[in-house]
């Protein structure tokens, strides 16, 4: 893809600068909850940055701020796109939608339910809508579902009837299918059995080799150790430390 070359390689793909996120709970007497405080880090092209931290430390909030599901209260999220740098924290909604369609993928632990759509189509439809022929889209969807060890018998079934682990596979396949430039993964493997998790890791490695940049929250230290290049540790909504994966104890990562 030509867009990978268009910005100077020295610029990080994503530069997060002094990111703050607060929630004002009007129903609770305007109680203010701090989600993120002065978070700064950069993500290089083709890098896998793992976000770790205790529950409630702000990992999911961070990913949602990067995807603009949460609107940052202040700070910048500079994304170096093919047509110049965009501040994801403040750009208009249409730009976000456009980037989500073309360049940035996101998946959470929970599959966004689409009623009455077979698993294979959940994955294939966005590809088709993005311009891929129906057959090619389905073929790619089947390949990914098969790589993620979703039993073939379930391909034509509705994910609403699936177990948590099965849904997560569909979810992950859907997020990675369009080969986004930037993948934001929020615990996409939490409900997977070890073999499937290994398969998912293999798949993510291939994407990294292809040039995809990944920012991911992972529950499981095996995954982080297996694929992450660097780790950012969050604590009480702030960055505690950041560095190469080898620099951290297993305890920190978990």
């Amino acid at each position, binding site marked *: 893809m030509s867009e990978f070359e268009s910005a100077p390689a020295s610029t990080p793909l994503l530069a997060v600068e002094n990111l703050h996120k607060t929630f004002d*709970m*009007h*129903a609770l007497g305007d109680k203010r909850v701090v989600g993120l405080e002065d978070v700064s880090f950069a993500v290089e092209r083709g890098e896998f940055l793992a976000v770790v931290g205790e529950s409630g430390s702000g990992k999911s909030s961070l990913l949602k701020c990067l995807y603009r599901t949460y609107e940052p209260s202040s700070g910048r999220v500079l994304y170096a796109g093919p047509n110049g740098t965009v501040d994801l924290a403040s750009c208009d909604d*249409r730009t976000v939608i456009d980037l989500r369609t073309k360049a940035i993928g996101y998946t959470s632990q929970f599959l966004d339910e689409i*009623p009455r759509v077979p698993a294979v189509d959940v994955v294939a439809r966005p590809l088709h809508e993005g311009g891929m022929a129906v057959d090619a889209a389905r073929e790619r969807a089947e390949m990914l579902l098969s790589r993620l060890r979703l039993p073939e018998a379930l391909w034509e079934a509705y994910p609403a009837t699936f177990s948590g682990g099965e849904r997560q596979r569909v979810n992950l396949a859907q997020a990675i299918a369009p080969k986004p430039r930037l993948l934001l993964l929020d615990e996409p493997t939490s409900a997977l059995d070890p073999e499937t998790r290994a398969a998912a890791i293999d798949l993510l490695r291939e994407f990294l080799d292809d040039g995809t940049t990944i920012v991911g929250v992972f529950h499981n230290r095996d995954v982080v150790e297996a694929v992450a290049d660097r780790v950012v540790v969050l604590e009480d909504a702030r960055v505690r430390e950041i560095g190469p994966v080898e620099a951290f104890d297993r305890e920190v990562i978990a």
Partner: protein
Amino acid sequence: MSLLEGADLTKIYGDGCESCRARTGDSAGTNQCPVCGSVVACADVNLSVAEGEVLGIVGESGSGKSSLAETLALAADDGGEGESGSRIEGEIRYAGHEGNLLEVDYETRHRLRNGDISLVHQHVRDGLELDFSGGGNVAEKLLSAGWRNYEAVRERVRSLFEETEIPVGRMDDPTHTYSGGMQRRVQIARALANDPAVVVLDEPTTGLDVSVQARVLDTFRRVQREEGVAAIVVSHDLGVVRLLADRTLVMRHGRVVESGLTDRIMEDPHHEYTQTLINSVI
């Protein structure tokens, strides 16, 4: 470039007075002017829809969302003068037409409504002639657009039935013999008949069973994306908007209190009312 834009859209039922705008709305907690008694259905609404985009409008009943939908769909038959003594102000700009759509003459409005901007009515009876066949209801759009070849009309109606998943075998049965879900599909097929640029859906799931709702919405979602048609979806049901809309407006007492990406509205609502609305669902 936006496909359809509304600027400062205001619709007032009643005579109106100087105080109407100041004394209604979210801060005033009402949409009825305490001075003159006029109802400000919506006021100072600004919105835009891009090509292929889906805009959601949510709010409780009486928030003015249906009035807004009808205004955007050019549903009032006499231009600036709305039905039953209402008055519409503001501007609607459309990429396919120069000037304010609120000021066009009847024939232009009719042409736009038939070919460019379709409305799927909240109430089936407003949108369909129940004594006509289902196929006839869809054919009306084509015939109004000047189709004069019977077999060509039949063929197009058949393919629209297939696209919206209505049994083609029922095509010639009177519409009143259709189930609620099928009637809704006929409305959608009808709305899509002339390949419009924008479809306005007013409460697309009203009166349908939950399982039927899901299927109708899924059909619309698929067709909307395949055809690349833009849509404005008005609903009190957050689930409907969550499923269909890219961006969402939240309305209360005739005013837009919050707008943004649909997932942002759902997960990070800013306005007090939106927070209450979201929390009351979860």
